[in-house]
């Protein structure tokens, strides 16, 4: 079957065939032909207010649904505005397809209006990218782009399409089968001997410790992880990308490890003799000083990307494969050998569990609250109580992100949305927006600091326009809090360019966008605000003025060893002392 179709029609047809239901985008000169087709096309287009936010919204959608997020921008400035979100998705391995328009082929290289070398600029910002100059290649490339975005280690793929392709016409044959990609092979299944080596590693351990990351979420390996944890009876710490992989309420969960990780998680990783890395990349925010990280441990590292094995920490047993399949196979073998091989170190492991549980019990994240002031930790605790491990929480970057990760529980994967690797400020609110579009029935919180909120502020218009019931919380301390914290601790309290003054009156701001909102200063006002936010059927903007100079603890100073945590604030000193 074939019919004469324009490139723009073929593009949307191909996107629809890949299951695309929603595109986050912003139109422009060369993408006009696409938008003309979109006008009465079943794919929903959400008009964001800045292209960068289209990428973050697509990420929020992808991170919470597991589907490929799709965003679109015009040539030149539209395309260059995508770069941060592309790198963000690359760092966190989020499946995304970005479509950009390009000037007509005969104008490329002639400094045409809104021309930029998108293909060149986004080369290092994507898993792979394409420049489409021939309409005959278009549908094949779109299908390849989706295949690459979601296969193996997921990531962003950009397709730059010249205007002549978008306006050209050709006979469209629906691609039934993809041409094999010679240079792209994913190894999903481990060999049996690798599983046996891993099995020996596990049962030989006296103090096993599971360190699980975003790979668990990408691979949808939560059920297998739960079984693995219970078979091995080992403590588990998540990276900031892994939260929700194992339910936060699980007794073996010892929270996050790393720079702002829990005492138990950081002590545990220092003391373990068998570090089990599952879908992790030994990021410097986790390891601190590498040579002091898990100094007594042999390492088992499972990852789908062979380039991750031995990258930062040499693995004693490296297994390349899909972590879900690896755990399935391992679980079978663990169950079979639990009584035999598993018997050797059983007592040592029980003793170890008791030790870790002791750390967990004695050093929880501090219960910080005050009668008059809203402590940021208290705010997170309240959101945690409301969410009860079931709501979606999309955060921005900085102190509030770390407090949210510490205090809010996630009992399922794909509830926690954050910019883990790149740490892109402005990520939170548009990501929450994308998450809500993908999960209309779930409670969605957007939590930002006052700094990040100002970066994504224009998206209030998108949220208002769709009456999108996102509960927007601003944790407002009047600073770029994390930078201020470092300046306090390491730069002698010289608070250079961190004061977020001239912050808008949020009640007026909400009203200006036609949405409900409130600004609160005390714990009792916070209750009113939260009650109103939850009762409101539409969006709600809640500005929470919190204690100004509160620091995130525990904290591992950059370049320090993770067991050298700063646990509590130093004695309070007034500013100016």
């Amino acid at each position: 079957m074939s019919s004469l179709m324009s490139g723009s029609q073929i593009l949307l047809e191909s996107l629809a065939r890949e299951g695309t239901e929603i595109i986050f985008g912003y139109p422009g000169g060369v993408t006009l032909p696409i938008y003309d087709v979109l006008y009465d096309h079943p794919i929903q287009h959400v008009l964001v207010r800045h292209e960068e936010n289209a990428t973050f919204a697509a990420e929020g959608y992808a991170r919470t649904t597991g589907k490929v997020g799709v965003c679109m921008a015009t040539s030149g400035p539209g395309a260059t505005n995508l770069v941060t979100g592309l790198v963000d998705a690359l760092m966190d391995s989020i499946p995304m397809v970005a479509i950009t328009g390009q000037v007509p082929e005969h104008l490329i290289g002639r400094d045409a209006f809104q021309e930029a070398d998108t293909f060149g600029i986004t080369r290092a910002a994507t898993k792979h990218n394409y420049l489409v100059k021939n309409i005959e290649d278009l549908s094949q490339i779109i299908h390849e782009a989706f295949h690459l975005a979601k296969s193996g280690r997921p990531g962003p793929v950009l397709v730059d399409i010249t205007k002549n392709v978008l306006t050209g016409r050709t006979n469209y044959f629906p691609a039934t089968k993809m041409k094999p990609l010679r240079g792209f092979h994913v190894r999903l299944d481990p060999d049996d001997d690798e599983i046996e080596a891993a099995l020996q590693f596990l049962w030989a351990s006296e103090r096993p410790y599971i360190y699980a990351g975003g790979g668990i979420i990408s691979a949808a390996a939560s059920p297998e992880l739960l079984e693995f944890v219970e078979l091995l009876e080992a403590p588990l710490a998540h990276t900031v990308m892994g939260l929700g992989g194992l339910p936060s309420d699980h007794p073996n969960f010892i929270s996050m490890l790393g720079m702002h990780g829990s005492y138990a998680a950081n002590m545990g990783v220092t003391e373990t003799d068998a570090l089990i890395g599952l879908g992790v990349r030994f990021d410097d925010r986790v390891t601190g000083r590498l040579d002091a990280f898990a100094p007594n441990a042999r390492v088992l590292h499972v990852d789908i990307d062979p380039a991750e094995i031995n990258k930062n920490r040499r693995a004693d047993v490296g297994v390349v494969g899909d972590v879900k399949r690896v755990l399935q196979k391992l679980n079978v073998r663990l169950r079979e050998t639990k009584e035999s091989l598993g018997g050797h170190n059983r007592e040592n492991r029980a003793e170890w569990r008791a030790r870790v549980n002791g750390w967990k019990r004695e050093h929880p994240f501090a219960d910080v609250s005050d009668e008059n002031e809203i402590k940021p930790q208290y705010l997170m605790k309240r959101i945690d109580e409301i969410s009860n491990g079931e709501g979606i929480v999309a955060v921005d970057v900085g102190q509030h992100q770390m407090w949210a990760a510490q205090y809010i529980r996630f009992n399922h994967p794909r509830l926690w949305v954050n910019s883990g690797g790149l740490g892109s400020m402005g990520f939170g609110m548009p990501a929450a927006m994308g998450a809500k579009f993908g999960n209309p029935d779930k409670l969605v919180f957007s939590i930002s600091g006052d700094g990040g909120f100002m970066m994504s502020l224009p998206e209030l218009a998108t949220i208002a326009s769709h009456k999108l019931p996102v509960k927007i919380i601003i944790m407002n301390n009047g600073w770029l809090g994390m930078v201020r914290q470092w300046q306090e601790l390491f730069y002698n309290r010289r608070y250079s360019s961190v004061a977020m003054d001239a912050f808008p009156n949020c009640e007026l701001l909400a009203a200006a966008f036609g949405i409900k909102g409130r600004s609160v200063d005390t714990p009792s006002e916070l209750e009113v605000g939260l009650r109103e936010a939850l009762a409101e059927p539409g969006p709600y903007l809640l500005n929470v003025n919190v204690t100004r100079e509160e620091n995130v603890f525990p904290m591992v100073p950059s370049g320090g060893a993770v067991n050298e945590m700063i646990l509590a604030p130093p004695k309070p000193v007034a500013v100016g002392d």
Partner: protein
Amino acid sequence: MQQLISLRVDNTPGALMRVAGVLTSRGYNIDSLTVARTLDPTLSNMTIVVNVDSETYDEELLIKQIMRLVNVIEVVDLTNAQAVTRELALIKVTVSPDMRPALLKEADIFRARVVDAAPTSYTLEVTGASEKLDALIELLHNYGDVEMIRSGAMAMERAPQGDHRNTFAKASRVPERTREPVKT
């Protein structure tokens, strides 16, 4: 130290840029890079010589990250492998009439061919290992001004003979077993 990497890549726009990008993003200087299509015109062969005088250099990681590129089909690290390496140079050297016979004799020793002769200069073509080219060029400086263009190295793995073959990063995209990490 220099690392010699041989690759097979898609013969497509951007493939060269992607490979070079893995090196240049780290600030490594590419000493030479040759690329041309293979018997299969949809593929290109690439030989890269990269200068790796860096404390942070990690050859295993570099190879793996190049292998990760979608347009890269094979990567072989030939640094310590049994490989034939050749380079071509075109050398224009000014020479006085009385020295011309001597120059030709020296050229002959290096199996260099005269590809252009002018009243005051010869242009020689020579192939060989990079060190041989260096030696010839050094010598020709004794005759007059030297102008030179080199192709950069191209390398081909020798056919396997016994156990001499370097098996690191075998010619396959299927990841090598990482349990016993191989350091060459």
